[in-house]
């Protein structure tokens, strides 16, 4: 057939295409819109405020902390006083200062490990959801293996083999054991999206699979991915605290987990220093809770029905 005049139907489609291609929102605008959606949820707002405060404390630790984290020479195992609001440790360090400096480690580990697990989960989950055949079976087997092997024992064993490693080692261990769940959730979502019309349209217009997966499908899963990040970060913070409490990793680093490790190993239970036991755990719980709260608002990003205040 010769290419003479373009049939009217094609012209109509082109017109629609041109209209919809019209300026894509700038990344900054997208981030702002996402942030305001999350902020509009009451629970998430509380979470953001708590997390924000904690990050500020971590960043300004050098200004806020009355003493250095490992500065000792004060009275040992002292109770709370004007000079030491939360008392001192068995090694004569200020508990409040350790608490403030310790925020840096927990937040750092949580954010970095959460981010890394999410990146792996996205890469594996999306390609796994898109490919078919033998490749999918192999990935399926590997992910299931990581899902079924109990996480904490695996973490402990790897940490033991990597003994002497510090924060970096903990992040590696947490990421190795933490990415599989997200990959599985993202894969099922990819599978359900890949049969949608817009994906079929992209396939017929000759787009490469890589572009289809990461430019067409991925943006539709923003809330799942963001939710996965906060979930992974929460799990990472709790796992880091648990590993450090067991004395795996570097016990000379001051973090909330190592504070609890030293509290039990220097018999803070016997000397009755409740603040030393209570405060680090409470901080871990607050940080983890703030992330959980933020996740309540994240559900609304790509599903307007879940936004607070909107009627179904």
């Amino acid at each position, binding site marked *: 057939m010769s290419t003479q005049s373009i049939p009217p139907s094609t012209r109509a489609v082109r017109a629609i295409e041109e209209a919809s291609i019209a300026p894509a929102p700038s990344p900054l605008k997208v981030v702002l819109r996402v942030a305001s959606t999350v902020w509009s949820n009451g629970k998430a707002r509380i979470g953001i405020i708590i997390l924000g405060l904690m990050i500020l404390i971590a960043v300004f630790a050098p200004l806020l902390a009355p003493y250095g984290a490992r500065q000792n020479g004060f009275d040992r195992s002292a109770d709370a006083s004007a000079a030491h609001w939360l008392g001192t440790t068995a090694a004569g360090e200020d508990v409040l200062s350790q608490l403030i400096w310790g925020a840096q480690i927990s937040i750092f580990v949580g954010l970095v490990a959460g981010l890394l697990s999410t990146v792996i989960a996205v890469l594996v989950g999306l390609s796994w959801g898109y490919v078919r055949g033998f490749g999918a079976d192999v990935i399926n087997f590997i992910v299931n293996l990581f899902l079924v*092997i109990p996480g904490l024992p695996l973490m*402990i064993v790897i940490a033991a083999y*990597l003994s002497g490693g510090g924060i970096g080692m903990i992040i590696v261990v947490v990421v190795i054991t933490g990415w599989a769940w997200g990959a599985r959730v993202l894969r099922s979502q990819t599978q359900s999206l890949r049969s949608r019309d817009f994906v079929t349209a992209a396939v017929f217009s000759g787009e490469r699979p890589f572009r289809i997966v990461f430019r067409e499908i991925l943006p539709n899963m923003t809330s799942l991915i963001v939710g996965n990040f906060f979930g992974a970060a929460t799990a990472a913070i709790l796992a880091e*605290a648990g590993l450090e409490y067991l004395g795996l990793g570097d016990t000379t680093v001051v973090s909330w987990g190592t504070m609890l490790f030293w509290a*039990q190993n220097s018999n803070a*239970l016997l000397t009755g220093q409740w603040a030393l036991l209570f405060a680090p*755990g409470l901080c*871990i*719980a607050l940080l983890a809770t703030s992330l959980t709260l933020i*996740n309540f608002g994240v559900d609304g990003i790509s599903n307007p029905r879940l936004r607070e205040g909107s009627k179904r």
Partner: protein
Amino acid sequence: MTSVTIAPGSADISAAPRITGSGKGRAWAYVARKAGLLLLTLWAAITLNFILPRLMPGSPADAALAKLAQNGPVSDATKAAIEAQLGVPTGNILEQYVAYLHQVVTLDFGVSYTFYPQSVSELVSTALPYTLVLVGVVTIIAFVLGTLLGVLAAWKRGTWLDTLPTLAGSFASAFPYFWTALLLLFFAGYVGRLFPTSGAYGPTASPQFTLGFLGDAIYHAALPALTILITSLGSWILGMRNTMISTIGDDYVTFAEANGLKPRTVALRYAARNAILPNLTSFGLALGGVVGGSILVERVFGYPGIGYLLFNAVTNQDYPLMQALFLMITVSVLIANFLVDILYGVLDPRTRR
């Protein structure tokens, strides 16, 4: 993390059951497929356990020798003798692998570095009953109690019976559970002096089957049990509540209500009966996790179970003990997983496709 319960086969639920083929044949094919998968996964886990220590810097033998060297220089002859005694692997990687597989099959994991000359198998069999009884019993109690509370929460949706456990359950997951254990230990053990602070039985008792010893053991297990119950109850309530709410919306429940059945009958025999399936899956997995599931709690209370043994093995770099424990913990989870799949196939024929 958004709570998405992925039950085996739940993705297939919307698909119509296949009617072709004999029922029995399909059932056996399902079991055979699952069994094949179990064997493959078992092999992968066992091999992972073999590869892990070899990927890491420094060999287990070096660690053991370094520990001995603290007491003075080690001569070559001593070194060879110790290596032979500890069963340090010799030969190339393939021979080591074959020897390792032989060890696994015969359940002979050599001697412990830390508790020398006790064998790994002896240590494990001493510790296992404590963990099995403590965590096993508490897991069953938590499952039954949590499921019932979840049914109640879903049925009385919107009342305090719903909001209270749901809120508590959501936040319990954000708490480091070893911290809950530490607080309980501090307040009920040290300050209140209500319960013993460590161990599985008193200093004067010795393990035997008498009423006195059992009472003493229960008294010592109370605090760890309470911790596990508090920290695990929430997820059972939430899991059951969420699936129950979606079944309550189903047509057959409305139909049962319209037929004038008693609300309790509708709740328990219609809605809960179908909603319990995913929770049952988690229960099977939780039972598999019993063996290794309480490492932190056992550490806090110095409870001499599998978790505490693993903690000791790790802190003392006792590699044979650590390898055996990790293998045992993994294998029990894998087998539980398999049994749950089979059970699921029996309870929900739609998964047997």
